[in-house]
C-alpha cells in the first residue's frame, strides 16, 4: 500500500471530497495566498502546506482566503453550512479559539437544537494542536477537552495518516459541526494510506496494541508514545493494550471498558493539563462504570497544570514522554 505523510493524507481527503461534492469549500488564512505571485504557480497551502495544490484545481471561489480574523472565519463557516454548503475552515493554531468562541460554542453547536432539528450544520473546523514545536504558551495547547465538553460538537483527533484521511472524509460527510484536531508534530509522520476515498465512522476506537496486563488509553500524538512504551515493556514481560479512541466526542467507552474487564488496570495519557482533561474524563467514566473490574488505581499521565514552557528542556519535561508513560504502566502492573 502507498506510504504517505499525515499532511498528504489530509490533502487527499480534501481533494477527494471537493471532487465528489461541489458544495465542499475551504475557508482560511493563506490557503490560497501566494498563488499567481512571481515564481510561485501554486498557493502556499496554509501555514503548514496541507491545502497545497487545491486552489489550482478548484479555484478561488472554493478555496477562500480570509483576513486575519478567526471570528470572521468561523462565523462565515457556520453561516455557509446553514445555507447549504459544506465548508471546511482552517483555524490554524487551536490556541486562537478564544476569539471565535461564540461562533463555535453558542452558534454552530446549537443550530440543530435551536431550530428544532430543521437546520443542519455540516461544517468542519480544522486546527493544529499540541506541543513539541518550541512555540511557547500561546501556540502549543491542545484544548480538546474544551470542545469535548460542549454537546453539539463532534471532536476528532487522528493519530496517524490512515486515520487522518478516513476521519477527515467522514467529518466532511457528517451533517454536524466537527472539530478536527491535527497534531503539528505529526504532519511528516508516514504510514499506509490507500489511494481511494474511505470514511471511518466516529465513535469507534482503534486498538493499536493488544495486551492483557494494563490498558492504556491515549489520544493524538500520545498514541504513538503509548505504542512505544508498550513495545518497550513487552521486553520486560508486561503486556500492554493501547486504545486510541480516535474521536473524543462521541467516545467509544465500550471498547475501553471491555479492555479493562480483561486487564483490570488503566493508564490514561493526555497531552493537556490535568484538571478537566480527557484523562480525567475517561478515568471518571471507567471508575463509575467499570469499578468492579479495577485491580489498581487509575493513573493519569498529563501535562502539569501550568502553561506550556518556551524553554525546550522544560517543554520536553512538560509533555508526557515515553518514559513517563512506561513508568506509570510499571507502577500499576506491579500492584
Amino acid at each position: 500500500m502507498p506510504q504517505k505523510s499525515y499532511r498528504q493524507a489530509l490533502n487527499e481527503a480534501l481533494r477527494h471530497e471537493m471532487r465528489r461534492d461541489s458544495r465542499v469549500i475551504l475557508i482560511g488564512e493563506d490557503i490560497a495566498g501566494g498563488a499567481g505571485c512571481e515564481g510561485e504557480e501554486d498557493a502556499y497551502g496554509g501555514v503548514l502546506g496541507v491545502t497545497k495544490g487545491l486552489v489550482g484545481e478548484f479555484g478561488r471561489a472554493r478555496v477562500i482566503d480570509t483576513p486575519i480574523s478567526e471570528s470572521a472565519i468561523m462565523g462565515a463557516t457556520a453561516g455557509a453550512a446553514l445555507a447549504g454548503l459544506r465548508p471546511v475552515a482552517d483555524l490554524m493554531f487551536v490556541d486562537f479559539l478564544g476569539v471565535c468562541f461564540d461562533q463555535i460554542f453558542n452558534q454552530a453547536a446549537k443550530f440543530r437544537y435551536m431550530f428544532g432539528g430543521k437546520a443542519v450544520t455540516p461544517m468542519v473546523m480544522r486546527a493544529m494542536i499540541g506541543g513539541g514545536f518550541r512555540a511557547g504558551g500561546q501556540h502549543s495547547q491542545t484544548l480538546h477537552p474544551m470542545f469535548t465538553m460542549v454537546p453539539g460538537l463532534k471532536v476528532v483527533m487522528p493519530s496517524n495518516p490512515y486515520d487522518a484521511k478516513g476521519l477527515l472524509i467522514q467529518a466532511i460527510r457528517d451533517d454536524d459541526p466537527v472539530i478536527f484536531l491535527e497534531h503539528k508534530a505529526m504532519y511528516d509522520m508516514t504510514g499506509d494510506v490507500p489511494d481511494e476515498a474511505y470514511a471511518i465512522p466516529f465513535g469507534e476506537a482503534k486498538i493499536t496494541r493488544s495486551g492483557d496486563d494494563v490498558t492504556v488509553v491515549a489520544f493524538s500524538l500520545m498514541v504513538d508514545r503509548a505504542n512505544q512504551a508498550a513495545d518497550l515493556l513487552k521486553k520486560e514481560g508486561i503486556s500492554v493494550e493501547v486504545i486510541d479512541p480516535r474521536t473524543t466526542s462521541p467516545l467509544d467507552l465500550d471498547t475501553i471498558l471491555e479492555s479493562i474487564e480483561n486487564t483490570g488496570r488503566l493508564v490514561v495519557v493526555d497531552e493537556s493539563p490535568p484538571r478537566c482533561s480527557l484523562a480525567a474524563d475517561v478515568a471518571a467514566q471507567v471508575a463509575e462504570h467499570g469499578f468492579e473490574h479495577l485491580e489498581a488505581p487509575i493513573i493519569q499521565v498529563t501535562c502539569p497544570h501550568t502553561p506550556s514552557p518556551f524553554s525546550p528542556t522544560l517543554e520536553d519535561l512538560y509533555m508526557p514522554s515515553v518514559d513517563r508513560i512506561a513508568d506509570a504502566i510499571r507502577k500499576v502492573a506491579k500492584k
Partner: protein
Amino acid sequence: MSLHPIIVPKWGLAMEEGTVSGWLVREGATITAGEEIAEIETSKIANVLEAAASGTLRRIVASEGEVRPVGALIGVIADGDEEDAAIDAFVADYEQRFASEAETGPSAPSPETVTVDGQGTRILVVGDDDNKIPAVLIHGFGGDLDNWMFNQSEWATGRRTISVELPGHGQSDKNVGDGSLQTLARRVIAVMDHRGIESAHLVGHSMGAAVALTIARLAPGKVASLSAVCGVGFGGTVNRDYVEGFVGAQKRKDMKPFAEMLFADPALVTRELVDALVDYKRLDGVPEALRTVADNALGATSIAELEAATAGLNLPVLALFGAEDRIVPTPGAPAAHTITGAGHMAHMEKAETVNARIADFMTSNDR
C-alpha cells in the same frame, strides 16, 4: 557438512516480522524435512513452520516470544556430529549477511497493478520459470491477494504463479459491472492474455472456484486443470447468513463473528485480520460492489446454472473441502478430499496439506 538455516518465512504481502510463538521440537531433536517444527505468528494469523531439511535441530536462535524480521535466522538444522564451533560460525555469518542485505532493501516480490479492460487490476507474480504450466490463483468473495499468503510461493517452484485480485476486491478497481461470474471470469482471462498465458492451472478458493469453472466454460482451452478449495459450485450450499453478515457489517464488532466463521479455530482470527477487513469495506464503492457480486455471482440462480453447465466439463479437477467449513458446507464431499481440522479458509488453516495436494495435482497435469 550440511547446515540449514531456519528463518522467519514471508507469509503475505504485509508481513515484515514474525513472532516465534512456540517451538514444537527441542534443541537436539532429530527432525525430518516437512516436519512441523515451530509456530510463527504474523500480525494477521498464526501458522506452523515446516522443516526444509532433515537433520538435528542443533540451535534455537530465537526463543519463544521473540519477534524477528522476515528472513531472520531463528534456528539451525545440522548433522548431529557437527561441531559447536561450526554452528556458531554459521549463525554469526548468517546474521552478518542478513544485516547487510537488510540495508539494501527487500527483494521479495511485490504486487503490481495492470490495466485490463480499462480497469486497474492488482496481481502478484511469484516465480518466473515457464518450464511448467503457470498457475493462476483466484480468491473468494471479500478476499484479496493475501488469502494466498501461505500458498503461492510454495507453488512457485519451477512455475510462474499469478494471483489476481478480482474486481471490487482488495486494491483492484471497485467497478464490478453486473457482478456476474462471467464478468469476474472475463477479467481473469484478460489478465492471462495480458501476461501471454495460453493455458494455466487454475486454483480457486470459494467463489474463486466458481470463477475458475466459469473460465473453463468460456475458454476451455485456457485451462489445464482446476483446483478448488472449499469451492462454490462443487456441491455445497453457500451460507447466506455469512454473505449478508459480511456485506452488512460496518464496525469491527459486527465483523468479528463473521471473520470467525471462516476458520475451524476461531482463535486464529486476530484483531489485525478483522481491522483489515473493516478497512477494506470502508473504501468508497466497496459496499456497493460486494452487494452486486453477492446478488449476482453468488445468487442462487447463478450457482445452479453453473453446476448444471459444468457437470459435463472434460477437465482434470481436484476439489478439496474443509471438514468444518461453515460458509460452503459440503456434507456429501468425499472423505479423501476433505481436510480435517479445516474450516472455510482451508488453504490458510491447513496450508501444508492443501499446498502438497495441489502441488502434486498440478505436477501430474503438467505434461
